[in-house]
């Protein structure tokens, strides 16, 4: 099997956030929102393991999909070297996706930081749904994909930690305010642990359907090595599910946050 695909374009969304558009029939034909690809950032040893990156946008007609990533460590720094026309080695689509809302349902989406990327694909993919999106960023400079979210949602609320854009503070604030007067059929969340934990617990208490996309360091990315453990309920006991295969999307009730 050859996992190399062609890069159609690269784009810098903010200081640290970059986007790569890739043509791949294999991936666009079967991907669903919430899934990720496992990317080889170099051909050698410098960032030896693949990096999991969510699928952020899919265009079935021209067989392309986007990934957006934050430049952090070795692997994502190497990703910044890729250019239009280069081949990129991507395994995917991998993992479970979100449970898609039914037509006519009302959903809320709560994303923070790099957690917003899989959520864009989600809101882009559901039609006839009332979508309210809450996004949290560090500051104004970090705000990305705002127009895209705006276009595909009914309402977009942005919060920044430092108040330089939108509402000041954590994004959970406006979301919980909104919940006082709204009852969504489904809530989806992805982002920093404190945020997703809070959202999950809030929804569970109120008996609202909630799905959470989890992150964990990965080895194989396909379910074989058991390194990407995520603590989940197993009857009265607990166990470890695989983020790469049993997830990354889990029902909130199933998760045991540590």
């Amino acid at each position, binding site marked *: *099997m050859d996992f190399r695909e062609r890069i159609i374009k690269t784009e810098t969304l903010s200081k640290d956030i970059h986007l790569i558009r890739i043509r791949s029939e294999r991936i666009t034909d079967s991907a669903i929102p919430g899934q990720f690809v496992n990317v*080889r950032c170099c051909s050698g*040893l410098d*960032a*030896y*393991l*693949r990096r999991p990156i969510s699928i952020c946008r899919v265009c079935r007609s021209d067989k392309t999909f986007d990934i957006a990533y934050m430049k952090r460590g*070795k692997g994502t720094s190497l990703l910044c070297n890729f250019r239009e026309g280069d081949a990129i080695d991507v*395994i995917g689509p991998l993992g479970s996706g979100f449970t898609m809302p039914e037509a006519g349902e009302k959903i809320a989406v709560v994303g923070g930081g790099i957690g917003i990327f899989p959520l864009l694909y989600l809101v882009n993919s559901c039609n006839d749904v009332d979508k309210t999106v809450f996004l949290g960023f560090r500051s104004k400079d970090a705000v990305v994909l705002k127009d895209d979210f705006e276009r595909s949602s009914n309402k977009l609320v942005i919060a920044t930690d430092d108040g330089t854009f939108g509402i000041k503070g954590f994004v959970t604030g406006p979301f919980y305010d909104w919940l006082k007067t709204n009852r969504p059929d489904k809530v989806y969340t992805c982002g920093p642990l404190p945020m997703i934990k809070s959202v999950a617990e809030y929804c569970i208490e109120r008996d609202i359907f909630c799905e959470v996309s989890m992150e*964990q*360091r*990965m*080895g*194989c*990315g*396909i*379910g*074989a*090595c*058991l*390194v*990407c*453990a*995520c*603590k989940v309920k197993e009857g009265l006991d*607990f*166990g*470890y599910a695989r983020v790469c*295969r049993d997830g990354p999307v889990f029902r909130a009730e199933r998760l045991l946050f*540590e």
Partner: protein
Amino acid sequence: MDLSVNIAGMKLKNPVIAASGTFGFGREYSKFFDLNRLGGISVKGLTLEPRKGNRPPRIAETPGGILNSVGLQNPGVHAFIRDEIPFLRGFDTAVIANVAGNTVEDYRAIVEILSDADIDAIELNVSCPNVKEGCLMFGSTASGVFEVTGAVRKVCKKPLIVKLSPNVTDITEIARAAEAAGADCVSLINTLLGMSIDIEKRKPVLANIMGGLSGPAVKPVAVRMVYETAKAVKIPVIGMGGISNGNDAVEFMLAGASAVMVGTAGFVNPNVWVETVQGIEKYMRENGFEKAADLTGALII
């Protein structure tokens, strides 16, 4: 050209085996390539009872390698026999049950159960660095390895492979203990004990603090130990540690290995097992080897 090798009473169609713990029970990778192309599969380490494994994070990337601290998460030997053997038997490849325990009694019990199961061999993991008690202790002394191998041998009706730890002063002493206690074969190396620190958080990357190092970084240590071991024992040696292609596999075979296992490299390249078989074949063709078995120990000193 004949790629098949005979080890420990098994005939493998080629010398390439998927390394335990990196390949689950084969299901996941079966979607990537035809498992019939493998010489064998060593399954995820099994214990008598199901095990949850260690807290995450369980993996850290290091220069040219990885640390893992999975800690033997597995569904237990009974679930393996019930749920996994039928699937694995759908392929024409050797099935090796990798087993671990905390006590000699554990090892004896699980081997007794597996002796009646439809598998080709048992690989005794006496060297897992990721569990607090138990197998690491056995694997680090010759007497420990002798004791557990001997106890198991009495009840083992399958070819018995003992998997050795590299975290020892003298691997040959340990290998000879396994041989003396009745092992049909030794496999090595398991992972090197290592540690990695996140200096921003000032905490170990792994929740377990330490983990086992594998991948290309360990290859020279593994080749050395395979070379030493192959000279020290008469039973066959299965070599592993950082193999990423056919050339690496040939290196282990020239050093004395009769077969090889490949693990970590598959995380990066799911084709690695098939490519390793092809690479060995290519080397044999270009260097005039008729039989893969002739590569074993063909080093010129």
